[in-house]
């Protein structure tokens, strides 16, 4: 997907225009395919929202996992695919969100109502942590953010009021009727996904999209043409952290329990990398496809232990080296598809005979 600003000279049309005629091109962003996709997505969200009434809560529980995976992939892609920041430490904000929800719950706030507050807590923490990371890039950024998550993990394990190494449970929800609780959890997870993926899409279509692509591609050149590199990076980092905070809150709501070793686990970063890389780094559609693939692999190969992770890791390496655009990038690049368009396209008019 190449981005074209409106007003940039169009590539030569297939047929050279007659002398004196205006260039027969049209610059547009939207397309019929995009209208159809957006409509389908809206219908899909409505159908998914009705699911608890139809399929029962046995099937909605794995769906919660899928929604949260897809939300994580969308956010990680916002960082790595657009702003050029590969982080192996986003589990820090999952943990902050989960523990913030636990503390808010102890203070008497209903867990479902506390999710936005947990997200805000993660965003505030991210704004502070970004001060440590802001000058770093590449491998330094990746490992330093990982070390920050390790620090939080080590800190929580030493703190008795946070349950230490054994973790904490969410008492309030245990007293709810299970069917109601599971349905509420499902709807909230769906809302978190819609906000993370939809919000990310709108963000990328805004000026931030161009700024972040420029920043991720070549920060020095981006700064030279007037992009505020640090502001763009900070915005991406803080907004993504807010999303991860909400997902972390959902992890404790859906599991009713959280312990530091599992929520601050680097495996979350591995999952995010696999989903985004396999689906297509720097595309809107790719991470969602990657989430479906990882989820399917987890479900189908669960009985073979961790072998599926070996396979998925090999697949991710192969994709990075042989098809860096990912699955969606390959399809859209070959066919020229863009179901959720981000860039502008230049089309040449065919003259009617």
């Amino acid at each position, binding site marked *: 997907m190449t981005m074209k600003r409106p007003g940039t000279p169009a590539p030569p049309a297939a047929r050279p225009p007659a002398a004196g005629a205006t260039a027969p091109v049209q610059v547009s962003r939207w397309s019929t395919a995009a209208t159809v996709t957006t409509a389908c997505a809206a219908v899909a969200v409505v159908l998914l929202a009705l699911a608890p009434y139809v399929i029962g809560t046995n099937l909605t529980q794995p769906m919660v996992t899928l929604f949260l995976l897809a939300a994580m992939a969308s956010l990680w892609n916002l960082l790595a695919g657009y702003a050029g920041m590969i982080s192996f430490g986003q589990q820090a904000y999952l943990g902050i969100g989960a523990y913030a929800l636990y503390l808010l719950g102890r203070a008497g706030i209903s867990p479902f109502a506390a999710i936005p507050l947990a997200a805000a807590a993660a965003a505030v923490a991210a704004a502070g942590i970004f001060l440590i990371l802001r000058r770093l890039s590449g491998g330094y950024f990746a490992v330093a953010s990982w070390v920050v998550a390790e620090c939080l993990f080590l800190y929580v394990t030493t703190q008795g009021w946070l349950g230490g190494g054994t973790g904490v449970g969410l008492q309030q929800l245990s007293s709810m009727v299970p069917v109601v609780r599971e349905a509420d959890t499902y709807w909230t997870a769906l809302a978190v996904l819609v906000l993370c993926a939809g919000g990310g899409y709108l963000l990328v279509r805004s000026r931030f999209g161009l700024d972040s692509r420029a920043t991720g591609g070549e920060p020095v050149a981006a700064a030279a043409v007037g992009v505020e590199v640090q502001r763009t990076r900070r915005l991406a980092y803080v907004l993504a952290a807010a999303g991860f905070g909400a997902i972390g809150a959902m992890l404790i709501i859906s599991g009713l329990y959280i312990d530091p070793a599992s929520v601050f686990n680097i495996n979350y970063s591995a999952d995010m990398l696999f989903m985004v890389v396999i689906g297509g780094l720097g595309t809107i559609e790719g991470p969602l496809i990657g989430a479906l693939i990882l989820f399917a692999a987890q479900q189908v190969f669960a009985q073979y232990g961790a072998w599926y992770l070996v396979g998925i890791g090999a697949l991710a390496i192969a994709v*990075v080296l042989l098809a860096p655009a990912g699955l969606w990038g390959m399809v859209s690049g070959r066919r020229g598809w863009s179901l959720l368009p981000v860039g502008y396209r230049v089309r040449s008019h065919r003259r009617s005979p």
Partner: protein
Amino acid sequence: MTWLNDTLQGIFVGGGYALTAVGLSLMFGVMRLVNLAHGDLAVCATYLVTSMMAALGVPFLAALLLMLPLAFAAGAVLQLALFDRALRTGPLAPLLVTFGLSIMIQNLLQQTYSANVRGVPAGSIDVSAAHLGGLVLPGLSVLKLALALVVIGGLSAALRFTGWGRRVRATSDDVAIARLQGIRVRPLFATVTGIAIAAAALAGTLGAVTTGVYPTLGTLTLIFAFEAVVIGGLGSLWGTLLGGILIGVTQVLVSQVSVPYATLASQLLFLLVLVVRPEGLFGTGEAAGQATGAEA
């Protein structure tokens, strides 16, 4: 006297970190490649040594010496098959590829050897400690520090005085111009990665004699090694030794006060160095550009 002894023990621990980190530092300095599977490859080598001891019935030292050329070969093959291509693909690709490799190795080891901690019987070179006044000199730790000095000294000398070293330094400065001078970069990089992985394998195996080995051990191994490289400064092997020692001393001294905070203290030291001096204590200006992406 006890704090003096604690500092000495910290230096010994740091020698082990430095021996692991020297390969990471070398690859970082020469190829700008952050190998996130560095620790996992060291753990892999440790498991290989235990398997060779069990299967061939050879003593620890023989298995260790047999393993080193294999580790060198594995490093060279990885460089030729994966890392070269990743370096050509783009700036993000090496991170994605080596992290993917790390997850693959960890899960492969878990499926093959189970998640339990496995002891590494050292046999003849066991951990007898000598006492010197109030100071304790644990044999294995002294050996690790001595090996770190030998490896770093040897590599520094080789980089400075041999033809191989001149080619490596030229390539590190500018790959394109080195190619124009007739240097064959791919085999050169393969030897660099081979040496890096062999050193990590040596350090990992000796370290596992005291702590045992488990499939996810490589994660912490990598983090400590990376911290040693960054604290010491990119492009300086002796800096890496000092970085490792600083981490080791911090951990041992803090653990005298409170054991749970020992690791946390060394992580915070690393973050502090990143904030105050991202180019590291002995780093060059060029290293700072590497760390910060030379941003405006």
